[in-house]
């Protein structure tokens, strides 16, 4: 399903994070569109044109039309090179084209646009662009328009992200586990229930998409089944085991502080041997033998 994301048209939102970056997937989808013969326009705001084109071979690069908003997006250099109308102007110009073929527009990134433009303006422009092919009263048949927007969801609050999410026909949230990337795809088709699925994937160095089954089942390091567990009680110089007689004697032993009825009776009944014990005391010259009870004056 990941490789047929653009077939539906409309806005495809690629939500990435610092941990799971989305530009590689964006480039992989751009490459796929270019190979299908579509017109591909890139609105580049975050990385330079060289960096974006890096990794594509020359026939892909020849099909990409790059609109550079990286070098001087805010017109600080005051040269005449700045593209008029800014990124939204370029977006509208792409859609006013006369060529009826399908078009893919990659926004790198939607986050940059959201930080620099009011959210309402951006949403209106995206709505106009992605619903263009269903616009009634237009005499010339216009081809399918797909808009791929890269959104760094950690940069924005839930409001703008929610607004963009409601505009999107397809939402891809990047995640993963243990070094394996996954894409959670939520697809909204008109008059149908939304469908969602998770696809594990990796991006090859030439930006081809490699779909995978999932992380390997053996995720914990398990012990080798051919080596039996070692018994540490073998080869000892002392005996750790009990014979049957020793075990019986141990089981029948009464613990000294365990209070049983026999012990209670023994304590209550004085033992016959106790009267024969004597204490021998030899007082020193300095001993003070006072026969008085020191507690006599206590009034208890």
């Amino acid at each position, binding site marked *: 399903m990941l490789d047929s994301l653009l077939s539906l048209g409309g806005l495809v939102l690629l939500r990435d994070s*610092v*941990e*799971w*970056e989305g530009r590689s997937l964006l480039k992989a989808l751009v490459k796929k569109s270019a190979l299908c013969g579509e017109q591909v326009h890139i609105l580049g705001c975050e990385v*330079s044109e060289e960096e974006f084109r890096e990794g594509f071979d020359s026939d892909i690069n020849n099909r990409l039309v790059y609109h550079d908003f*990286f070098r*001087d*997006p*805010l017109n600080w250099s005051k040269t005449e090179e700045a593209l008029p109308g800014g990124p939204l102007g370029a977006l509208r110009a792409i859609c006013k084209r006369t060529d009826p073929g399908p078009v893919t527009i990659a926004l790198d990134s939607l986050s940059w646009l959201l*930080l620099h433009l009011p959210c309402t303006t951006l949403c209106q422009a995206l709505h106009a662009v992605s619903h263009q092919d269903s616009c009634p009263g237009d005499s010339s048949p216009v081809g399918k328009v797909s808009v791929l927007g890269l959104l760094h969801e950690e940069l924005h609050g839930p409001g703008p992200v929610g607004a963009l999410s409601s505009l999107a026909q397809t939402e891809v949230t990047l995640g993963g586990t243990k070094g394996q990337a996954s894409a959670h795809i939520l697809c909204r088709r008109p008059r149908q229930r939304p469908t969602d699925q998770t696809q594990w994937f990796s991006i090859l160095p030439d930006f081809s998409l490699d779909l995978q089954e999932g992380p390997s089942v053996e995720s914990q390091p398990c012990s080798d089944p051919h080596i039996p567990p070692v018994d540490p009680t073998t080869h000892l110089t002392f005996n750790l085991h009990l014979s049957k007689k020793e075990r019986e004697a141990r089981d029948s032993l009464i613990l000294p502080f365990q209070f049983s009825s026999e012990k209670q009776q023994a304590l209550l009944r004085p033992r016959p041997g106790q009267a024969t014990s004597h204490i021998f005391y030899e007082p020193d010259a300095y001993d003070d033998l006072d026969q008085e009870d020191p507690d006599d004056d206590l009034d208890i």
Partner: protein
Amino acid sequence: MFVELNNLLNTTPDRAEQGKLTLLCDAKTDGSFLVHHFLSFYLKANCKVCFVALFQSFSHYNIVGQKLGVNLTVARERGQLVFLEGLKSAVDVFFQTQEEPHPLQFLREANAGNLKPLFEFVREALKPVDGGEARWTYPVLLVDDLSVLLSLGVGAVAVLDFIHYCRATVCWELKLRILWRRPSQPTAQRDQSLTYQYKIQDKSVSFFAKGMSPAVL
């Protein structure tokens, strides 16, 4: 510069990378030793350094630099180091009339608009000098630190735009190295993430793998 840190980053002054942006982040601790390390590293590598120092005074960096073997006064006099001392020049915004906007002009504006004057200062400081042979290897921009800009009321988007322009014009056109410092959660690096613990001594920093310090073992 700290030799152990060079070994960890696998770099030396004579073969440092160009065209890169390095972000130094500290959270709940003080990472300023990294700023002093990189300042002395790039001065020793014979680079042209533009240092936007908003956090400490010139003499502070000079004193620490001398412990690390560089003299900032000499570097500034011979043109290797362009030093914007934020603490001192912020006062000039108020008490000296300027024809051109001061780099810290945003202090004067009601809604701290953008950092375009600061960017133009950086670009002017690092553009290659025409005529004469190139004395310096490549330009380096060092900013200490971005959180001061946020504290002074500059919006986060304005700071991002400043970084963007420094990357676009200075990093890409002039192929230089930018170093920043900002406080926040350190960003997770997916490709290569190494964690070390460190101990700062008087003139050096020693690094060791987690749990391996002699004081711990």
